[in-house]
């Protein structure tokens, strides 16, 4: 069994596993649903997530302990992760192979030569780590933007899976929608297609995780190298070299991804995985200069205050950034979110969406609720997002904490925002049309939306009485539509103040019922108003938790007449609407 064959099997295994984890990340008990599948395993193995959160939060969140295993194995063996485990790497490997397999050997060798641009990934790494590292100057976790594991998780969860699952709906109960997924797709596609230009483009030039492995793999006990100095320099070893590390001469250990292709391709047994350094020389350190390093650090440190000049963490916070229940306060949240998209994937109502630049640069691809999308706003009895977040940017809260039950009864339920009735668009407020859909759907008990009765004169509703008798009033005007007032919402207000319910109508008369009291028949010639009974919704901001069901159900389907915005969210004391009692 060749080692290269084993490696390919390993890549297949981990890629299939990754794909399976993406598919099953949906709430439910069946085999194809989440059950106990460790769907975050790849994210937990990712040392960039662990190191990033250590830098921003000064502690290692316990599920990320897996990263220590990856780091230790890398220290001992080298950059095995890139060629044996990383699902993104496997994808790049595959596409590169597809694109390059028919090329002549000489061209392949040329494509795999080491390029100075391979330094860029180290600058990317340092830049991101600097952004995370310095409290009070910098401290935001943006590694998730280019870290391959969140990158590929995001791309599959939010783009590929929704597309391919559409006909069968196996991975999700219904079609999924994700705002701004086009950008994720475009970047993903670009990364994939660039493999046709230079093999494993992303891995060689961009990947900060690969850079991290390159840096710590310097002391590897075993490394690829020449085991004899007599070599005819046919350069066959570089024909399929995946890392672009040039094993022929002065192999660059930090670029070697342990694909072992060189060892297999060498017809003379010159290349081996050995303890001694390559007899043709090796370079262990990444090819970055001190100057480059310093510039990256400086860039990273300055980038954060530059980004934050928009004030989005202060008074200029964006009200539409409604975070899932259990999310940490914003500044802390941004120190932990790796933008993996798991919360968006598992949310059963599809309400969690990847954030846009609108809330600031740091908002990109962080979870933001959009109540118009999906099946129902934030479902009351669900805490799935917190349970799946790999870094606890959304805390794994219990249902009791979310709903304010048991030991959290005094604390009350978690609010993610407050609903505001837009009285200019709401049907009973502005259009004179009855509607109480928001009140009906409010899931909390007692309801956070209540209505108040209001009678409004309808258009052309001022009438003059021609005659009245028994339960019928006839008007001078004869331009009603027969039956239009018979819905049970219409009333006649007669002079003297009595309001009678309209039961039926013809073009020029109405039949009324007055309930218990008899009708005080209006005199001929007196004025009558035909009114419509409206129930106008009010939001009780003490009870509203901002779940967004009302917004979702509002029949004014474009710009909703009741909209949730983040004021009143419990995770932030500054954004309170009410004075604390």
């Amino acid at each position: 069994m060749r080692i290269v064959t084993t490696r390919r099997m390993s890549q297949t295994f981990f890629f299939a596993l990754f794909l399976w984890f993406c598919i099953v990340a949906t709430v439910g008990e069946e085999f194809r649903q989440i059950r106990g599948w460790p769907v975050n395993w790849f994210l937990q193995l990712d040392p960039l997530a662990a190191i990033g959160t250590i830098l921003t939060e000064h502690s290692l969140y316990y599920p990320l302990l897996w990263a220590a295993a990856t780091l230790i194995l890398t220290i001992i063996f080298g950059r095995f992760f890139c060629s044996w485990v990383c699902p993104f790497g496997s994808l790049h490997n595959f596409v590169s192979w597809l694109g390059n397999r028919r090329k002549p050997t000489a061209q392949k060798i040329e494509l795999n030569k080491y390029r100075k641009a391979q330094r860029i990934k180290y600058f990317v790494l340092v830049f991101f780590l600097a952004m995370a590292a310095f409290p009070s100057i910098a401290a935001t976790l943006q590694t998730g933007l280019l870290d391959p594991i969140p990158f590929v998780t995001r791309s599959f969860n939010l783009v590929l899976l929704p597309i391919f699952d559409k006909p069968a709906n196996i991975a999700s109960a219904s079609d999924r929608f994700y705002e701004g997924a086009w950008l994720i797709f475009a970047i993903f596609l670009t990364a994939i297609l660039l493999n046709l230009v230079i093999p494993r483009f992303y891995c060689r030039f961009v990947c900060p995780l690969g850079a991290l492995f390159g840096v710590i793999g310097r002391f590897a006990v075993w490394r690829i190298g020449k085991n004899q100095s007599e070599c005819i320099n046919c350069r066959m070893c570089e024909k399929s070299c995946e890392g672009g590390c040039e094993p022929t001469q002065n192999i660059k250990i930090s670029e070697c991804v342990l694909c072992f292709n060189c060892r297999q391709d060498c017809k003379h047994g010159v290349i081996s995985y050995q303890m001694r350094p390559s007899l043709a020389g090796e370079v262990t350190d990444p090819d970055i200069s001190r100057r480059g390093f310093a510039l990256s650090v400086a860039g990273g440190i300055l980038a954060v205050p530059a980004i934050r000049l928009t004030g989005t963490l202060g008074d200029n916070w964006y009200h539409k950034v409604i975070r899932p229940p259990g999310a940490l306060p914003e500044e802390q949240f941004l120190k932990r979110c790796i933008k993996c998209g798991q919360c968006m994937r598992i949310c059963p109502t599809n309400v969690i969406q990847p954030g846009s630049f609108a809330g600031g640069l740091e908002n990109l691809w962080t979870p933001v609720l959009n109540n118009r999308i999906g099946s129902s706003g934030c479902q009351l009895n669900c805490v799935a997002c917190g349970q799946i977040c790999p870094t606890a940017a959304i805390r794994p809260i219990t249902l009791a904490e979310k709903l304010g039950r048991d030991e959290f009864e005094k604390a009350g339920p978690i609010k993610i925002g407050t609903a505001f009735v837009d009285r200019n668009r709401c049907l009973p407020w502005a259009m004179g049309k009855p509607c109480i859909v928001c009140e009906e759907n409010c899931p909390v008990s007692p309801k956070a939306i209540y209505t108040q009765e209001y009678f409004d004169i309808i258009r052309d509703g001022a009438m003059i009485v021609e005659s009245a008798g028994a339960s019928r009033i006839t008007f001078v005007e004869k331009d009603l539509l027969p039956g239009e007032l018979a819905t049970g919402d219409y009333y006649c207000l007669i002079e003297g103040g009595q309001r009678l319910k309209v039961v039926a109508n013809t073009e020029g008369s109405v039949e009324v019922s007055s309930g218990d009291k008899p009708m005080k028949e209006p005199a001929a010639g007196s004025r009558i108003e035909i009114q419509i009974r409206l129930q106008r919704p009010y939001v009780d901001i003490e009870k509203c938790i901002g779940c967004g069901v009302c917004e979702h159900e509002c029949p004014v389907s474009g710009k909703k007449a009741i909209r949730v915005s983040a004021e009143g969210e419990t995770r932030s004391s500054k954004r309170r609407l009410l004075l604390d009692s």
Partner: protein
Amino acid sequence: MNNPEQRQSGRREFLARTAKAGLAVAAVGAASYLLYDPAVPTPAEDAGRLVTLPDFSVPAVPAKAMSIVTGAERTRTVDKAIELLGGIERFVKPGETVAIKPNVAFASPPALGATTNPDLVGEVVRLCYKAGARKVIIADNPINDAASCFALSGVDAAARRTGAQVLLPTDSMFKYTTLEGGKLIRNWQVFFEPFIKADKLIGIAPVKDHQRAGASMTIKNWYGLLGGRRNIFHQDINTIIAELSMMVRPTLVILDGTEVMVTNGPTGGSVSDLKRANTMIASCDQVAADAYGCTLLGLKPSDLPYLAKAQQAGSGKIDYESLKPKLTAIS
């Protein structure tokens, strides 16, 4: 091909590299261990996520609310005192987790009596395990550096000797609480972690003179649970102590009057600050315990305004006689 020199330098290089790799592995291991956080992050501004300390008290048994045992040896007097209240089995059931809050406020040696005596703590831990407790946690949020306080006061050694776990406070172990009916404890950080896991709570405090409060005994002992800049409460010390009695409802309090700090409290500093009173008090009513304990300092309950406030808040009775405390002497 390979001459001995090359081989040797190769070997040296290999060894150096392997050593570095080993160090790197060790560094990763050490970093993981030191930074490991088994808890879920606490929201930095915890407004709204208020918690309430659970009520740890056990059902009252008439005439078994308080016991006073005189004797010279702490371990024996505390055994007797608890026995008189029905035995440790009344308070600790098998499989339970017990949190013990001693006074470990200072990095002060046991001989100076500023902290709870470690032998006493050890004995109570032993009793808890005897009753079948699954785990005993010892926790306090000291004024000085926590690790040194636990070490120098001897409580840490006592814990290790008896199998209890010392919980040193870290930021993530604090939560915000508001005391219902409280004026001062509002949205205040409290050392909450020991309580999440605990089924029972035992407070153990020495009798000490206190410059500000008059005396520091079982109720003042809970001051150690407050976080943040708690010294601000010294401005209204009697109210805060009364509120502590409302906030914390322990299973049992043990007041150690074996060697009482009669002057220069609460830190003392000299053995001459201590006077032997050879008294151990165990009580389900912390107000009553303090009311009796202050007599060991030569005070009357009326000398301690916080007692009246606590009684008014319903935390207990000053008139300890009404509880019919059991008195015994051990030779």
